[in-house]
C-alpha cells in the first residue's frame, strides 16, 4: 500500500528508523525541530505527557506567525475595510487585499476576483448550492456526489434537492474506499446539473482522482465543485490545472484560524450567479426601487468580513508556502506510510480505507476496543486522535461500522509520535484483553 499524495512524488527515506534517536528525526528538506518550535501549543503537556497531536483532520494547530498576524491586526490596523479614508482603514484594506492575493497564488487561480472569503468549506458549499444550485437545479434534475463525502458536501445538496424536487445521486466506492469511476461516469447524464466531490476523504484518506471526474462532467457540460478541506493542508493544489469550477476549503485545517475559509469559482460562473446574502459591501448602489450588486469578489461578501481571519489565513499559507508544499507532501506521505505499516502490524487492527492513493489520514478499528475507549486511553498518554463517525456517517454505513479511530497528520508530526501512538494502542489492547 502506498500513500503518495497526488501531484507529488514522495522521496522515502531508505534507512530504518532507529530506536532512542534524538527527537525528531529529520525530514527531507524540512527542519522538523524548528517547525515544531514554531507551534507554541506543541509545548503543552496533557495528563503529564507531551502533547502528541494527531487530530489534524479536525483542525490543525497554528504557528506563531498566525497568532502574531491576528494580534498585529488588532494592535496596529483594526478598522473596517473598503470604507474609511483614514490610515487604519487603508492599512486593513491593503492587508485584506494582500491575503486574497496570497490565496490566489496558493490555489494558482487566474484572478483574485475568483477568491471569495467565507467562514469555511461548509459555507462555501452552501453558497454554491444556494446560488448556482437554486438557479440551475430544477424539478427532476440531479446533483451528483460520491459515497465518501463529509456531511458538509451532502446536506446542502439535500436541502437544495428537497426544495427543487431534484434528486441526489451518489457514486459508489469500493471496499478499499476508492471511487468507482466507471459507476460515476454512468451517473452523469442530461439531468445532472452539478457534480460535488471531495478531493481527499476525511474519514478514509482517499485521494480522489479529480482529472478524470472533471473531464467526464465537462464532456456533459456539468460544472464540478471540489471540497478541498482535507487536501490543501497536504499537497499543492492548482485549480487551473484541475480545471474545476469551484473549490472550497477551510482556513483552520491549513494552519489558519477558525471562522475563515475560501470559495474559489471560475469568474464567468461567479459573475452569472445571484448573490448569496444581501447587505453592506456587496452592493454598488442601493435605492428602495433597485439595488445594483458590487463586482466580484465583493458581491458574495456581504457585511463586515472576518478581516483578521483572512489576514491570518494569508500568514498561514505564506508559512507553508515558504516550507514548500512538495516537501510537506513528501514528509506527510512518509509519515502515513510509516503509520500504515506500524499501526497496521498491531494484532487486531483493521485499517478502514486502503486506497492506492491516500493523504493525511489513517482510519482504523481495534478488535474488542471501541474507538471511544481507545481515544480515552490514548488521551491519558497525551495523544489526541479523533474517534467517531467523522461527520461521514454514510461512509461508516458503507463499511458496516458506526465509528473508527482516526489519526491524521500535519507537517509538525514525527515518526516518534507514531511510535507513541502504536505503544498507546498496544496499551489499550492490554486493558481490554
Amino acid at each position: 500500500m502506498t500513500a503518495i499524495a497526488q501531484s507529488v512524488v514522495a522521496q522515502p527515506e531508505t534507512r530504518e528508523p532507529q530506536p532512542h534517536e534524538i527527537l525528531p528525526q529529520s525530514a527531507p528538506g524540512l527542519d522538523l525541530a524548528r517547525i515544531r518550535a514554531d507551534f507554541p501549543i506543541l509545548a503543552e503537556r496533557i495528563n503529564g505527557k507531551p502533547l502528541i497531536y494527531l487530530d489534524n483532520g479536525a483542525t490543525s494547530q497554528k504557528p506563531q506567525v498566525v497568532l502574531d498576524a491576528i494580534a498585529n491586526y488588532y494592535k496596529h490596523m483594526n478598522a473596517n475595510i473598503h470604507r474609511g479614508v483614514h490610515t487604519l482603514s487603508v492599512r486593513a484594506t491593503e492587508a485584506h487585499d494582500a491575503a486574497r492575493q496570497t490565496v490566489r497564488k496558493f490555489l494558482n487561480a487566474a484572478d483574485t476576483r475568483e477568491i471569495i472569503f467565507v467562514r469555511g468549506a461548509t459555507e462555501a458549499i452552501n453558497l454554491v448550492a444556494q446560488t448556482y444550485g437554486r438557479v440551475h437545479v430544477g424539478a427532476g434534475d440531479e446533483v451528483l456526489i460520491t459515497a465518501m463525502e463529509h456531511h458538509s458536501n451532502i446536506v446542502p445538496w439535500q436541502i437544495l434537492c428537497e426544495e427543487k424536487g431534484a434528486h441526489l445521486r451518489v457514486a459508489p466506492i469500493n471496499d478499499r474506499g476508492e471511487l468507482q469511476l466507471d459507476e460515476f461516469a454512468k451517473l452523469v447524464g442530461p439531468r445532472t446539473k452539478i457534480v460535488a466531490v471531495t478531493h481527499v476523504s476525511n474519514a478514509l484518506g482517499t485521494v480522489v482522482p479529480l482529472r478524470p471526474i472533471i473531464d467526464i462532467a465537462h464532456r456533459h457540460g456539468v460544472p464540478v465543485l471540489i471540497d478541498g478541506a482535507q487536501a490543501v493542508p497536504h499537497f499543492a493544489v492548482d485549480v487551473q490545472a484541475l480545471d474545476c469550477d469551484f473549490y472550497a476549503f477551510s482556513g483552520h485545517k491549513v494552519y489558519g484560524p477558525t471562522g475563515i475559509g475560501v470559495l474559489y469559482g471560475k469568474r464567468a460562473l461567479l459573475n452569472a450567479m445571484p448573490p448569496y446574502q444581501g447587505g453592506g459591501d456587496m452592493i454598488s448602489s442601493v435605492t428602495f426601487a433597485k439595488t445594483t450588486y458590487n463586482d466580484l469578489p465583493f458581491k458574495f461578501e456581504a457585511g463586515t468580513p472576518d478581516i483578521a481571519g483572512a489576514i491570518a489565513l494569508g500568514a498561514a499559507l505564506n508559512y507553508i508556502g515558504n516550507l514548500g508544499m512538495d516537501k510537506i507532501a513528501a514528509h506527510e506521505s512518509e509519515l502515513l506510510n510509516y503509520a500504515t505499516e506500524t499501526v497496521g502490524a498491531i494484532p487486531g487492527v483493521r485499517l478502514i480505507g486502503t486506497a492506492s492513493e491516500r493523504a493525511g489520514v489513517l482510519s482504523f478499528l481495534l478488535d474488542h476496543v471501541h474507538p471511544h475507549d481507545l481515544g480515552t486511553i490514548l488521551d491519558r498518554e497525551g495523544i489526541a486522535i479523533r474517534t467517531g463517525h467523522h461527520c461521514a456517517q454514510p461512509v461508516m454505513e458503507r463499511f458496516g461500522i458506526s465509528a473508527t479511530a482516526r489519526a491524521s497528520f500535519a507537517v509538525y508530526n514525527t515518526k516518534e509520535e507514531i511510535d507513541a501512538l502504536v505503544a498507546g494502542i498496544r496499551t489499550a489492547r492490554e486493558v481490554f484483553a
Partner: protein
Amino acid sequence: MSAGNGELSDLYQEVILEHSKAPRNFRKPAEANQHAEGYNPLCGDRCTVYINMDGDAIRDIAFQGNGCAISRASASIMTQILKGKTKAEAVKLFDEFHGLVTGKEAPAETPDLGKLKVFSGVSKFPARVKCATLAWHTLQSALENKDTPVSTE
C-alpha cells in the same frame, strides 16, 4: 487485565470491563411492551432499551445496540439494578446516577446506587458522561413510551 494506575483505572474498573465484554440482559425480549431508541450523534452509538411493565413495576428490562465499553457496561448494570423497581424508583436512580457521573454528587451521598457507583470515575472524563448516560436517557424515553428516538444532544 489492568487499566494502569490513577484516573484511567478509576474509569475502567474491573466490573465495567467485565460487563462491557459480557453485557447482561443483552437481548430483545419477546414480551416487551415498551421500548425506545437512543442515539449519540457525536459518536454514532445506538442503544435500544426494552421494558416489560407490569402496572408501575419494571418486570423485565433488556437492551441492544452498539457502543463503547462505558455505554455497554452502563446499560448492562442498569438493567440488572432496575429489574423489579418501580417507574418512580427508576427515575430517582437516574437522577442520582446523573449526579454521580457528572461529579455533582459524591458516591457516599448516593447509597441507593449500589453497583452503579463503579461509574464514579466517569466524572473525571467529561467527554464520556454521554456514554454513561445514553442507556438511561433511552430508558427514560421507554418509560414514557415516546415514539421519537432520544438523542444525547
